[in-house]
């Protein structure tokens, strides 16, 4: 059994800015534990000479040339913004007064 704790799930939820109820934390702690256990089984199959990969594709060096393409218009860029001021996105205060 994995060692995922409710505290870890609550911390992760905070980092991801997801608001979880105590009930959801309990069930997610269980679910995440199972996921971690399942993934651990893969490690039993992988041998030391299997290099870790971050990608299933046997491809490297896929590059784009440095050529400008048209951007969105300002209106398009701001169309999904919850709030704006002129041509800028408007966001709530970031830090509280010291």
């Amino acid at each position: 059994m994995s060692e995922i704790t409710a505290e870890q799930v609550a911390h992760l939820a905070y980092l991801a800015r997801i608001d979880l109820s105590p009930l959801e934390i309990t069930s997610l702690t269980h679910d995440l534990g199972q996921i971690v256990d399942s993934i651990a089984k893969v490690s039993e199959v992988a041998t030391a000479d299997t290099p870790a990969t971050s990608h299933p594709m046997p491809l490297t060096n896929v590059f784009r040339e440095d050529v400008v393409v048209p951007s969105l218009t300002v209106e398009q860029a701001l169309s999904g913004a919850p709030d704006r001021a002129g041509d800028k996105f408007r966001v709530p205060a970031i830090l509280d007064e010291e």
Partner: protein
Amino acid sequence: MAKAELMDFDKALELFEPVLGFEVHVELNTKTKMFCGCANEFGSGANTNTCPTCLGLPGGLPQVNKKAIESSIRLGLALGCEIAEHSRFARKNYFYPDTAKNFQTSQYDDPICHDGSITIELESGRLVTVEIERAHMEDDAGKLTHMGGATGRIQGADYSLVDYNRGGVPLVEIVTQMIEGAEHDAPEIGKTYVAAIREIAKALGVSNARMEEGNVRCDANVSLRPRGSNVLGTRTETKNVNSLRSVERAVRYEIQRQAAVLAGGGTITQETRHWHEDTGITSAGRPKSDADDYRYFPEPDLLPMAPSREWVEELRLTLPEPPAARRKRLQAAWGFANLEFQDVVNSDLLDAVEATVAAGASAQAARKWWTGEIARLANAAGVAADSLVTPAQLAALIELVEAGTLTDRLARQVLEGVIAGEGTPAEVVDSRGLAVVSDDGALIAAIDAALLGQPDVLAKIRDGKVQAAGAVIGAVMKAMRGQADAARVRELVLERAATIE
């Protein structure tokens, strides 16, 4: 904001050993952003250079800019780094409104460049080798403007505005190893190191390298170790110290502030601090522990990179002469005294002087004009000196002075004409009629008139009081509208005074 207690710098150094580290961000001057084809431009209208990829909208798919990889490798090579055979991007996850994707695309355990070093020279001549741990690629964040509140700063703001034009612009972050043994030179090491990085980036042409536009930004890590201890102190990271002078001041300030806290029995909090250019102090930002939980993982939307050794060697061949070596070579070739040479370097006129010398001028004359009259005019106009005239124009002007066609005074007038767009120096001499009057006949006529007009002066000169000739020389220069060689006029005045009837 409460002013922190500071300990005298020398006293702080007696009690503690400063340990430094720097993270310098170099913004690359590619035409487009790191992962999309939006223009990488400074000063465009807000949010005009954005697309679904750099705004982090659903469906946006990043594509790596080849030129940015090339620039990063060249920068790494110039810093003496190894270029990784395998490298990849990683997501650094955090929420902050200047980062639309909610993660920064950066590099974690496979940076493109690692294990380099550069040697910098301090004013005392002391050489310091700064070890480079890594230089990795990442994308820049957007620009925040804090509104409301008393100060326009992040603290106390009512809300903030975001312009994402800079979001996604390619950066190389250069991270040093710990720098120990800096001692009293710690502030100067900070300044000189950042200056060296800036100079290298500029010489490579990979960045515009203008600190005032944020092309080169420095985070300074400072910690203090009590003398006789081998345990490192807790460090602070002062963010966005964006001028060379500020790097020096911020390092000095943190040493003095931390020393006062530690000597008073307090402890240093590991945190990021903000540098305030206006007041010259740092203030606490977010504590480090919480924000450090970035949950890096390999970027699933980008493929790994494997720069071939052939490509790396090709790029190595494109490296320019290292700036420090070039400075040494040029100073020796030009025979400048240290102060003269520093003047040129500090005014950012090394390229201009070099090109003027290449165009045929003597080094001393090129230096004198660039750091003198041209710098003065540029300063008054608020522009860069090398934007006023070309090295070829200046070399042509210097040639006219050396040939005796122009006095320095006339040459300054010709320079004004050239700057005003009136043509080449020779053309301005013609159109403004500014050449020195070298026709002795014209000079003698003016001298005779002046001598006869001031018989008392003539009598004095004949009595051997040659300093009286000054009044006549002045009158002649005035009559010639300054277009005469004063030394020649003096010669002729003495000659005529002896013979005139």
